[in-house]
């Protein structure tokens, strides 16, 4: 240690503050075994229940049947997943595009905030499923109403979180900006906007999961493509195994998209989980 330091801290790279135990680091068997075992147990229990109680397969297919349906119909399911994913992502990005400028507007002035907020609260409280038939009426079938539904469901958590994040500028930083007579724009880009990033991403994580739901609701209402439609048709044909396989693909899609957002957060604001 060359620099004597009464506070007794580590050097960069060996931060004293960062050596709290990280969950799931390395090949920690303890953290892996438990979930794997529990999943296998549940699946076995499911399979046993169906066999023991002789449940009709159209009521509850055993997991192995679901797996078979998944493998046999993989090309169709992948195409459905691609369509639903495309709608979800389109709606999601559209909601970012509209929500972020709106959040900035809300924070620009009190009259703007008071003017916009009632509509946000009202819009948020409307169940998006209720709008779906109207969209069908106005726009018709196709991917557009689904994208709009994904957009509507994803939109509110992004606006609200980003708006809150933009208010999180430390008061000291505002004082610093005033002392140096920095322009509002400069303070915004140097301090306010980056400060809001963790909140923005928290909003995105909620939004991406909701966007999947929005897209599926859109598919339920109309059209003949996507995982939502596949689930509807399979259920109607008593192909419960295929419906289950489609639901599995849907949740995998949700997990994948969520992981991508979390990854983007790690890359774009790596400081968040450290500070």
């Amino acid at each position: 240690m060359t620099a004597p330091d009464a506070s007794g801290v580590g050097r960069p790279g060996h931060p004293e503050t960062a050596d709290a135990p990280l969950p799931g680091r390395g090949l920690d068997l303890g953290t892996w075994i438990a979930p794997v075992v529990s999943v296998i147990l549940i699946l076995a229990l499911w399979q046993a229940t169906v066999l023991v109680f002789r449940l009709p397969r159209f009521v509850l297919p055993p997991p192995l049947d679901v797996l078979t349906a998944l493998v046999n119909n993989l090309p169709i399911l992948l195409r459905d997943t691609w369509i639903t994913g495309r709608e979800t992502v389109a709606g999601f990005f559209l909601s970012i595009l509209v929500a972020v400028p709106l959040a900035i507007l809300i924070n620009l002035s009190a009259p703007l905030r008071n003017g916009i907020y009632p509509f946000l609260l009202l819009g948020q409280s409307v169940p998006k499923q209720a709008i779906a038939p109207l969209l069908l009426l106005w726009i018709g079938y196709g991917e557009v109403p689904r994208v709009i539904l994904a957009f509507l469901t994803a939109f509110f958590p992004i606006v609200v979180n980003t708006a809150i994040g933009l208010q999180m500028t430390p008061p000291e930083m505002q004082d610093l900006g005033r002392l140096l007579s920095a322009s509002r724009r400069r303070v915004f880009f140097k301090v306010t906007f980056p400060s809001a990033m963790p909140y923005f991403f928290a909003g995105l994580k909620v939004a991406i999961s909701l966007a999947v739901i929005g897209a599926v609701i859109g598919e339920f209402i109309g059209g003949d493509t996507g995982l939502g439609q596949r689930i509807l048709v399979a259920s109607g044909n008593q192909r419960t195994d295929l419906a289950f396989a489609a639901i599995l693909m849907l949740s995998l899609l949700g997990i994948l998209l969520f992981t991508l957002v979390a990854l983007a957060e790690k890359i774009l604001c790596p400081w968040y989980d450290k500070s």
Partner: protein
Amino acid sequence: MLPLRLGEGRGEVVVIELDAVSMVYRSRGKGAVTALDDLHLRIEAGEFVTLVGPSGCGKSTVLKLVSGLLEATSGQIRIHGQPVRGPRREMGFVFQTPVLLPWRTVRENVLLPIEMLGRPVREHVARADELLAQVGLDGFQTAHSWELSGGMQQRVGICRALIHDPEILLMDEPFAALDAMTRETIGFELLRIWEERRKTVLFVTHSIPEAVLLADRVVVMSPRPGRIASVIPIDLPRPRTVEMEYDERFKEAALEIRALIDHGSTSARTSATAAGGRA
């Protein structure tokens, strides 16, 4: 109240002047609360003045008024004879908590005021590194705030306040959150920088030993309403050392300040009781 010492550029030019400064906060329901009442103070160029008093005596308000972030209800604050109207760039402000921006490296945090001023950043990198080296943070230029202890973060906060070479350094209980050992070390570091760069320092603290050890003069404040109870000149040689805490002059000054503060709070209690009796 006139300082007896002269020389070394100190005790000649009045930099900060408080002239009958009062601050009254008006809030609905509660009526008016007088935070500061008739403050008179003159601080000279290169002087290190500490402001000590119990919490709630308006110490921090004084700093905000001097910096121009707040406006006094009555009276006038002058910097080099010019009345303060609004925030002023020649102030460096060290906050109670360092508030470093976590997405910036240590060096980038120090350079933030330069960016806010719209000055060329590259021309100030060397100065930032020099300041960091002076507080023992050489080698930490590209570290991030989460890799630093509280003491190191506040050192960065001091460098950030000094980067645009302000004439006046305002410090608002900067070491309050630090442990006693770090507090002492960082205090002496601050004194070294001050001796070298000759800033005029107004330093708010609630620690009497800290106030005495750092200052040329200690302004003692009494609470509710905040008044200047007394200004105590500290007759200890420079540079200051840890040993001076055991010097008789140190103890004398500390005791005197203690008595002033205790007296202030006693009178506040009595007046509160009196007010309660009347109601």
